């Protein structure tokens, strides 16, 4: 009787509707995460895990220069990608929100998603074609006589990783900023001018603070996944463009050291989470971001 009434209650209905998704999320997200977390404290054995507790894996992560260097480079790359992506996304979002007629806004947003119609892998390969030794840019510049031998700094280093990732994540950065800009009551901008500020100062004092919620979302959406990106550095990174995800892959699939790979993963996750939290906190504290 009691069970029946629970299932009929509003909370019961809600939980029932939620349960398939919750189950799915548990199986494919929470369970692997827990497994990785547990593995990271176990003793390595080739292609298997020895079930004895140890902190050695973490000791290695923090003591050997390769991991810290790669983690540092990952955060650095991802930070640059985030800055480039968000700074280029803002003017685009601003243009669509303020200058495109309302009837055409959805068309513009649709156009922005066009790169997603091809696979991520193909887009990365295309950048290889564009940036390569005999690629589009080099051939064009050589043909125009601007350079006399192909530029080599374009591909297989951090530059190419940044360019490729910034392109891939552009729509993710544009959309949240666009939404934040759309929500700004236009009379606020008139009020800013009415109170004596120029268009530019009105932008600084009104538009930008009110768009910060979108900027913060964009930063997080770009920063968190790019810090752990694996495909792009593999394909266009070369030896000097490798990131932390590449070493995790190496530990797991080449060396068969699951506990070590797990420890690097957990460390990377913890660092990225900490940085994201610090960013959100700083933003709230000093830039009056979303409350």
């Amino acid at each position: 009787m009691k069970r029946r009434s629970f299932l009929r209650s509003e909370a019961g209905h809600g939980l029932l509707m939620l349960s398939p998704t919750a189950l799915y999320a548990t199986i494919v997200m929470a369970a692997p995460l827990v497994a990785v977390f547990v593995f990271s404290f176990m003793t390595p054995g080739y292609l298997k895990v020895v079930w004895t507790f140890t902190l050695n894996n973490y000791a290695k992560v923090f003591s050997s220069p390769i991991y810290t260097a790669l983690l540092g480079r990952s955060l650095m790359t991802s930070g640059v990608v985030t800055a480039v992506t968000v700074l280029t996304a803002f003017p685009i979002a601003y243009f669509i929100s303020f200058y495109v007629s309302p009837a055409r806004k959805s068309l513009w947003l649709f156009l922005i998603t066009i790169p997603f119609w091809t696979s991520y892998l193909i887009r990365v390969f295309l950048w290889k074609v564009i940036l390569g030794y005999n690629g589009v840019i080099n051939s064009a510049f050589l043909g125009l006589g601007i350079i006399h031998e192909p530029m080599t700094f374009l591909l297989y280093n951090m530059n190419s990783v940044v360019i490729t990732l910034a392109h891939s994540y552009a729509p993710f950065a544009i959309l949240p900023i666009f939404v934040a800009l759309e929500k700004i009551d236009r009379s606020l901008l008139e009020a800013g001018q009415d109170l004596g500020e120029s268009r530019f100062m009105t932008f600084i004092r009104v538009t930008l603070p009110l768009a910060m919620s979108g900027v913060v979302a964009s930063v997080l959406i770009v920063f968190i996944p790019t810090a752990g990106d694996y495909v792009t550095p593999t394909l266009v990174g070369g030896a000097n463009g490798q990131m932390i995800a590449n070493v995790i892959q190496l530990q797991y699939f080449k060396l068969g050291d699951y506990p070590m790979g797990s420890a690097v993963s957990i460390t990377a996750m913890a660092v990225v989470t900490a940085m994201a939290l610090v960013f959100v906190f700083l933003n709230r504290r000093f830039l009056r971001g979303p409350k």
Partner: protein
Amino acid sequence: MTSSPAPAARLARPLIELREVEKYYGDYYALRKITTDIREGEFFSLLGPSGCGKTTLLRCIAGFEDISGGHLAIDGKDMEDVPANKRPTNMVFQSYAIFPHLTVEENVGFGLRRDPSSKEDKARRVAEALEMVGLKGFGKRAAHALSGGQRQRVALARALILKPRVLLLDEPLSALDKKMREQMQSELRKLQRQVGITFILVTHDQEEALIMSDRIAVMFEGEIAQLDSPERLYRRPISRKVAEFIGIMNFLPAQVLSTGPQIALDVAGLGQIGIDAEQCPGTPRTGEASVGFRPETMTVLYDGDPEPTRGKVAQGTVEEVVYFGDMSYYEVRLEGVEKPVQISMRNVVGRPVLPRGSRTRIAWEAGALVLFCEPKG
């Protein structure tokens, strides 16, 4: 006859000069050759139905819209190339446009950034402005935690702290509930007298315009139909359209028999009468016309009431009575007129409301009538 003007209005020099101001979007005319002066220190209202151009005119004065033709000068200076942020005007927006990311204090002090005075001086002025609008102690509150009436006050303080020559108010009371609106109407009026700044109010609420303004411009379809004091506007509307927009007016078909200083009329239901030329705000001419009067200018007489010494009497039948406590509203069918006329009467002790169907006499004064000679519309 008019309400006492604000002290500064005695100078009565035009603060805003509009000369054939036009605004069109493609081939749609929002404003058609508006020419008028707005005086220093007056409470000026732009009144009209939605789409009449009143808000467009206000936005042209503020500088948010460029005018398509004509000239607009404030304080003797042409405003053509002056952007909104350089004009001596400030606006209270319909939505109030309170910055949601700032506190009340920061909102009010927003326009003081470029002011050279010290931080303490600015803080003192913000506190004063808040006190003036009745928000003392609200400075630290977040703007989004305010009620509609409080937002309104913040918007007022934020504009008035800059001591503009003109305060522009775009339907500032339309979002408030009735009680709050009435309170703000009287507060705004007092505030305007206190600061002596010219106020230009845009409203579609004729009652609000009548209560608050020194002068009202009634606008229809991009043109000013009549610009007058509230009392003139109510008593001597220039056209049937203006008359119908402001309060209630009864119309009776009439025939103009002769014109001159005295106009001879034959009015349906009232008979042959003569009125002053002053009672025809348009151009009088013989022929078909209509005569209007306000509901309170006629009196329903009871049996045995003496006929008024001045004024006249007509015969009618009570068709409908609505009792409102302090007032009663009668619909009376005059003899020979199809549409009943509305008459409002103050209720008096010892005089019960007349029942429906009563035969009655209506007393009226010739001075209350307004003659409209415009073609029938």
